[in-house]
């Protein structure tokens, strides 16, 4: 990477391979377990099923055939990734309680977690219970406040104006149903 490369190309330059592989180990292990569960269910749908009108080679046309191949492939690939992560991840000392605490109290991480929680609150709690415009305005206000996007009155104004505008444009003008 040359020094004059644009900023976007070096966005993750700070994250070294060791960190990436350590995180890979966690993600792959979780997904490996999920893949095994999916594989077991696929096997049931492939070999433990009777299909009307099919006498021979039922497993070939069974609904679990492709999921079985895919989940089996995922188990193999995640196993490979776990093996690679253990080899390249420099795991020693990185799974101590202090390291985990440091990782989850990182400022950027905390802000992202709060933003994700706000999104969940907006979608799972506010939508359907409040009018869409009001729910959107509340979410926008909270998200911009957490991000310290502008002054309080500016954030309030932007939230109300934007939610009002989209509710009118999509809901009334374009007749697109809003949640």
């Amino acid at each position, binding site marked *: 990477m040359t020094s004059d*490369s644009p900023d976007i190309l070096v966005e993750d330059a700070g994250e070294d391979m060791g960190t990436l592989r350590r995180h890979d180990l966690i993600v792959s292990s979780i997904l490996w377990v999920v893949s095994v569960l*999916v594989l077991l269910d696929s096997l049931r*749908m492939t070999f433990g*099923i009777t299909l009307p009108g*099919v006498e021979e080679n039922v497993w070939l046309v069974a609904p679990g055939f*492709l999921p079985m191949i895919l989940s089996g492939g995922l188990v193999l690939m995640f196993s490979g990734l776990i093996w690679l992560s253990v080899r390249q991840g420099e795991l020693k000392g990185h799974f101590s309680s202090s390291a985990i605490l440091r990782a989850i109290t990182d400022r950027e991480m905390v802000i992202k977690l709060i933003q994700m929680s706000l999104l969940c609150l907006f979608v799972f709690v506010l939508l*359907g219970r409040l009018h869409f415009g009001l729910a959107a305005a509340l979410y926008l206000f909270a998200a911009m406040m957490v991000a310290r996007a502008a002054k309080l009155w500016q954030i309030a104004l932007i939230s109300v104006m934007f939610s009002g505008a989209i509710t009118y444009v*999509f809901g009334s003008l374009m*007749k*697109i149903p809003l949640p």
Partner: protein
Amino acid sequence: MTLSSFFQNIWELATNPLLMLWMFISVTIGIIVGAMPGLTATMSIAILVGLTYGLSPELAFAIILSVYVGAIYGGSITAVLLNIPGTASAAATALDGYPLALQGRANYAIGMTRMASFIGTLFGLLLLLTIAPLLAKVAILFTSVEMALLALFGVLVSGFVAAPDLKIKGWIAAFIGMLMSMVGIDLLHGTERFTFGQPMLMTGFAFVPIMIGVFGIAQVIDNLSLPQAKRIKQTGSILPKLKDYVKYIPLTLRSGFIGTGVGIIPGAGEDMGGWLAYFAAKFTSKKKHLFGKGSTEGIIAAETGNNASIGGALVPLITLSIPGSAPAAVLLGALLLHGVRPGPMLMTEQPDFLPQLGAILFLASCILLISGIIVAKFFIRALDIPPKILMPMVAVMCVIGSYAINIRIFDVFVMLGSGLVFYVLHKQKYPMAPLVLGVILGPMIDENLRRSFMVHGDLGAVFMRPIALVLTGLIVLMLLTQIPWVQSKFKTSPPRL
């Protein structure tokens, strides 16, 4: 026949003032969206698929393709003015565009990239109109099993090409996408798959909410902490002199060829088209020393390459139902949603579709020439909106877009859920385009594969057809080349001294 139909479609579309107005607005919005760091062409198309669902197919495609063309070009404006490519496809443009802006030639660079984008799009379009009908004639020989294998091959190639880290991650993303598409009632036998007795899961996951979540929500979370960049002052005329451009025509043609060729490869995308055209220009230039310091050849090659990839990416999409890039994958979703089934039969079933698509692309690229000037002159201040304000607004748009398709709150949950889950995978450098491709093509692979087994009765008979055999061989070869043991066997050791 296609050409005369193409010109007839241009005339019909151009004489429809309402449609032209929508296209003008869409290209302009596309340029602004493409120019804003954090907003991508794929994301905007994904959201638009939901928002344009209620419109007529003609208008919906006109809007979506106009935004596509505008957004791919728009990325170059920020590449020149901020040294931050608005879209990944403009990354190569920033290498020479920003130094040109620092030399006080910002408007010259913007003007040149606009011309290059225009010609690049036209070049890609020309090849699309030429290659697609020929390819469709070959593809019509394909039976169910070959269509399934071809789709699987496309998904795997996409995973192979798009993976920024390990190739295996691209395939994992593709496999997860295909598995997600298996949820719901199996259409061949009516059996439930992975529904856990939940009525909401019976119809499966709609692909649009997944697309919006993957490309929208992940971007929102990622870019909320993006700092606001300072623009370079624009100086000079916004209109480039034609004679300045004419001397670069051979370079433009070569970059167009490279861009279109790269675009055809599933998953390669516009950014790779731009980079390869840039490197080819640098390799063959007589002024190599200027590259990276403000070379006009550099920005022209990069912009022609990435815009020519648009047409290239549409070739396999139209003929084989396999998109060449991430935005094209989302476009495939839009086509399916509006009842257009891309593939070998499209030319027979809807012979007017390709000329119409070409006419929209042609008009959109012409509008780009005018709209680009307007944006660069008057709407450039939109780039000053901080991402911290913009991103929550995009999140709200994602909610509307995912809900509008089926009027189902469950789709909004799917959108957010997939956005949050795949954000983690995105941070682990799993490419998202193969995942979306897997979600879209998964049912086609499953149905075609099992249908051919039903017809032939056993495994051997299905794979004995020559085309199927070749495709199976290619898939196996691609998978084998990534196994370390196989790699070590074929690695040539350096000669001993």
